[in-house]
């Protein structure tokens, strides 16, 4: 009995040594290719406006889900996925936010897709602080890889 287990185990080992080629080793991608993406870097919005979110999401095998999160960038931190520095009015503008806009929503992508263009309308509340914000897009694929893209936007 135990012998059988070990034989099975070693057979599995021999098998395992040469399979695993269909593993997904690539992250999904969040791109602007072939579409007019929105929001784009340094876009400016009025409070009360709607952000017409549009990004293309691709994966070599199958897409998972995505999430959109917006947080204040009143301290002007940077994200490694965005090298663009938008022009900020005034040098020392760092200040504490009192009522920053916080948005965080999960979205599902239909099963079986490896290319998907997401459209979401996001209403900006009227009572939030104006200033610099980061618009974060997070995307997974079926294998569990995650890609993150950060876009700097401004509320007036």
């Amino acid at each position, binding site marked *: 009995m135990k012998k059988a287990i*070990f034989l099975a185990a070693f057979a599995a*080992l021999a098998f395992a040594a040469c399979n695993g080629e269909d593993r997904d080793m690539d992250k999904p991608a969040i791109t602007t290719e072939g579409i007019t993406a929105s929001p784009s870097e340094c876009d400016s919005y009025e409070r009360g406006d709607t952000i017409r979110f549009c990004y293309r999401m691709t994966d070599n095998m199958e897409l998972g889900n995505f999430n959109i999160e917006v947080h204040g960038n009143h301290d002007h*931190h*940077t994200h*490694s996925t965005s090298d663009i520095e938008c022009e900020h009015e005034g040098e020392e503008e760092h200040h504490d936010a009192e009522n920053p806009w916080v948005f965080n929503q999960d979205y599902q992508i239909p099963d079986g897709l490896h290319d998907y263009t997401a459209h979401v309308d996001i209403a900006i509340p009227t009572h939030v602080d104006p200033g610099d914000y980061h618009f974060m897009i997070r995307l997974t694929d079926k*294998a*569990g890889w995650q890609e993150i893209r950060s876009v700097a936007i401004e509320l007036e």
Partner: protein
Amino acid sequence: MTKTLLLVMLLGTPPDSVISLQDVTVSARSAQAKAATQNAVKVDAAYIDEHFSGSLMQSLEGIPGVKAVSIGTGLSRPTIRGLGYNRMVVSEDGIKHEGQQWGDDHGLEVDQFAVDAVEVIKGPATLLYGSDAIGGVLAITGNRLPARPLEASVSLFGHSNSLQGGLSARVAGRSNGFFYKANLTLSDYGDYRVPTDTIQYYSYRIALRDGRLRNTAGTERDMRLMVGWTDNERLRTDITVSNVYARSGFFADAHGMEVRLSNIDYNRSIRDVDLPSQWVNHLKVQSHTTYQLGTASLEANLAWQHNLREELSEPLSHGYMPTPPDSLERRFDKHTFSGTLAARIPLGARHEVSLGTGAEHQRNSRDGWGFIIPAFESSSWGLYALDRWTPSENLALNAGVRYDLNAIDIHSYSDWYRTPVGSDSVFMQRSADVRRTFSALTWSAGANWHNDDWILRLNVGKAFRVPIAKELGANGVNYHIFRYEQGNAGLDPERSYQVDAGIEWGRGAFVVKADPYASYFPNYIYLNPTPDYVEGLQLYRYTQTRAMRYGIEVEAAWAFAPQWELGLRGQFCRSRQLSGDKRGYTLPFALPPSADVDLGWHYDYRGCGNVGLNLHAVAAQNEIVPPEKPTPGYMTVNLSASHRFTLRGDRQLSLAVQLGNLLNTTYYDHTSYYRLIDVPEPGRHVSLRIKYEF
């Protein structure tokens, strides 16, 4: 065929040499190696002294297959053949050491200066140690009998990377039947330094000042007292009280949701600890008694361990959680009561039977505004029998069987704030009541044969591990790494079947050995990243998968001249998931192949000393599973030197210096939690220890 190259390694020493740089190999050819059917290596305090490099585990890294996963200079946790956390047991004087094994940023909670000897068992050893010893055992001895009426030592130590400074003192003695031993260790360190000026954490780019990880400073205060009595013949009994306290900051830029908005001036000092931070305290009271009854030896242990841990961070609202009233994010308070009873009974000249039983009860309660691990109670009981048969002088066989029964009762947890659900709002339940009972029958059998030149070992066995509360009932945001972690109440006890072999040949000044192993897990439990989002974060869920692991450690040593030694050692380990979502991938944090070349010189001049040069090469790791990144290979050059002066009387003064990463190479440790946030390992550094014994 770099793989093959890495497999053919050497290091060690001829059987009769006493050059301490290669203590590991010396002990490997000791009587123990010739009798043990399992791969075990024993080192003593002198070895740890000479290889001192910051933490106990780092000092043990010279043993092939043993690796320290370090968080800064002070904290590190062991892995054996790539398995760590709850897949190995750390025991101290026969009692399983309870840390907070589940966390990435928890150290070992052991005072390394109070250690007399360490035995590392590679491969499963659940037969004697019960659940968790699926990957191996680190058995620490701290209760050796003092030899003289009064002995004392004082050590000073330091580490350049974190500007660590510390002091350890020891007084011990024995008169008539009475003996005692007292240890005190104090250590303080500043922010950890890495050779880079920017790191990337969850897409945030963080600039480092002077390469320092802000707020990673800390302090440690350990004490230990043993008192006992022996009739110097049959009976020995002692009581040990030990306390380990450590406080350290979390890397401020890589912890918590909104830390970038903090008003704390982290650059004010490299030695202070601001929020976020943690402190842990481990108190242990242990009674240990041995008694010789006729030819049989009996041993009884009783222990109470109290683990306290608090994680503190700035109170900030997140999602529907309002701003908490204080900085207590999490508190864990765990009591463990354990007892063991063991007997070794010789039957005739050729058999020795070991019988043993052990029981343990744990209570864990929690507090704080952040939830990740539920409160629980757990109980376990085990019983084993083992026979060791020596049919001839050259051959030893053993076989044993063990039965374990474990029960866990996890308490439900609901949020302290309301979350809107439709038009209503509720206190969301994070974790439900879970009651599980696990039982396991495990076994092991082995053989050892040796003659003058050869030692051959073979061991097969079944091991198991009970899932922990985190794996069964976690449900919350892990702020250390920005993900949502969810337990799985339906997990089975993890099992593994392993075959382990050893072959060693030595003659004259030359020794070669190889230790291959393979194991099959019907259900390996791990944290699997899913495509889903929960509350804005990627969901990671505990999952079980069929898996296979196999590997080998190889060593060779050659004493090519009277005072010179050349050694090579290497290890290779590979794993595959055979079922589930991640079929075909490796298991997480796969150990990359590595090789070491050591050149050692021993001299006798005003005492004695050793000088060692080490080249440590690690291959690239491209065997990854989400969310890991491939890690490039690297090589470091390390120098060590130690000298022991014998002064008047029995007094001794010893010095040990380690120069690590001489070429200041920037590299990443694939198995470290810091790898996920792109934090490299330390650059060039020096550690120093001065010890005075009198």
